[in-house]
C-alpha cells in the first residue's frame, strides 16, 4: 500500500485499467487517441486546452502529462501560464457570477 494517494509512477499504469474492464477501457483509449489527433485544432492547441482543464480538475497526473505535452508541441512558458490563468478566470468567475444570485436574494428579502 502506498503511503500517498498519488504516485507519479501510476500514470504509466493508466492502461492497466483494462485489466478489470477491457471493453470500456479499449473504447475510452481509442476515443482518447482520436480526440488528441491533429484536427481543426492543432495538437499544440489541444495540449494547452488539456493543460488548462488539468488545472481546473486539479489532476496531478494530467498536469504532469500536459505540461510535458505542451512543451513538446512547442508551447512557451508564457502560453502555458496563460492557459492556467484562463482556467483560473473561469473557475473564479464561476464563483463570482453566483454573486448575482446572492444579490438577487438579498434584494428579495430586504427592504
Amino acid at each position, binding site marked *: 500500500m502506498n503511503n500517498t494517494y498519488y504516485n507519479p509512477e501510476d500514470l504509466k499504469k493508466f492502461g492497466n485499467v483494462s485489466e478489470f474492464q477491457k471493453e470500456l477501457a479499449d473504447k475510452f483509449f481509442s476515443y482518447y487517441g482520436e480526440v488528441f489527433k*491533429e484536427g481543426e485544432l*492543432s*495538437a*499544440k492547441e489541444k495540449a494547452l486546452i488539456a493543460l488548462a482543464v488539468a488545472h481546473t480538475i486539479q489532476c496531478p497526473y494530467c498536469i504532469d502529462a500536459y505540461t*510535458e505535452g505542451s*512543451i*513538446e*508541441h*512547442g508551447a*512557451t*512558458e508564457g502560453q502555458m501560464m496563460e492557459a492556467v490563468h484562463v482556467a483560473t478566470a473561469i473557475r473564479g468567475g464561476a464563483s463570482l457570477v453566483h454573486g448575482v444570485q446572492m444579490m438577487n436574494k438579498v434584494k428579495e428579502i430586504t427592504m
Partner: protein
Amino acid sequence: MKTLKATNHPIADYSHQVAILEEGTEVSNIPKFADKLEAIGLYPLKPTGFDVFQVNVGKMCNQTCAHCHVDAGPDRKEIMTRETMQTCLEVIREHDFKTVDLTGGAPEMNPDFRWFVEEIKKLGRHVMVRCNLTIILANPKFHDLPEFFKKHNVEIVSSLPFYNAQRTDRQRGNGVFDKSIKALQMLNAAGYGKEGSGLVLNLVYNPSGAFLPASQTQLEADFKQALMKDYGIEFNSLFAITNLPISRFLDYLIKSGNYESYMEKLVNAFNPSAAAGVMCRNTLSIGWDGYIYDCDFNQMLDLKIDSPGAHHIGNFDSQAIGKRKIVTGNHCYGCTAGAGSSCGGATT
C-alpha cells in the same frame, strides 16, 4: 562554462558513457537496441549507399552549449589539419558523395575552413555548413562569412532551439539568442532564406530539456510565424532533432534525475520506419583526426566503423566500408524515436 574534458569529468571518458548506456544504471533496464533491430529484421544494420560525407573539422567552438554531444568549447584544441583535409578531398573526388556536410565545434574556427570549402566546391559537390550563428559576430574576421557562404552557394544549417531568448539562452548560453537573431538578419540581408535566391538557410530545433520534439511541421510553422513577426527573419526549413543521450546531454540527464525516464521515452517511441531510415545508412562521418565513423554521435563515443584496416581516411576502402556492419548502441534510440531524427531532421 568549461567543457567536460577540461574539468576531467568522468563522462568525458567515452567508455564510461558507453558503459552507462549499455549497462544502464541501478534503476534502469533498457532493452538492447540491437534486439529491437533484430525483431524488425534490421540487424545487423547495413549501409544503403554513400550520399553524405560529413566532416567534423574540429571541436573548438566559441560556445559551450549545455546539451552539446561533442563537448565542444573554446578550450578544445582538436582541429583537422590541412593534410587530413587534403586526404578527405581525394576520397570525395574518387567517390560519389553528393553532399559534404561540415560540422564541429564551430567549423569556421578551423584556420583552413575557407580553403576546404573552396576545394570541395571545385569538385562540384554540394556543401552544407553547420554554423552556430554567433560565430559570425564573434570576431571581425568572421563578419564576412555570409558573403563567403553566398559566393560558394553553401547551404547553412543553424541551431536555434527556440524562438525566444529564455529557452535558447538556457541551452546555448546567455546572450546567444540576441546574437543569433543578428546573425540571421545578416544572412537574410545576403539573400539567405529568401524565396527565389537559391541560398538555403535551414534551422535546427532541438528540445531544451528532457523531452522529445513534436511535429516538425507544426514547429516550423510556429518558428516561421514568430521569427517573422518579431524580427522579420525568413528561413527555408526547420529540422527537428532529438537530443541523443551522450556527452553533456547525458550529464544533464543524470544530474537532473531524468536519465531513466528519458531513455524510457525513447524506447517507448521506437519507430521501425524511423529505424529503417537512419542517417548512418547513407552517411560517413570523419573525425578531426581522420578516423571514420558511422555518424557524428558514434564519433563522440569513439565507436569507429567496423571495418578493420579501413577505418581511417588514409586507407579508405569503399568496398569494405560498403559491406560493413553499422555500429549501434542504446544511444541510437535517439534516432529511431517518434518521427525519427537525423542531421536533416525527421526521417519519416
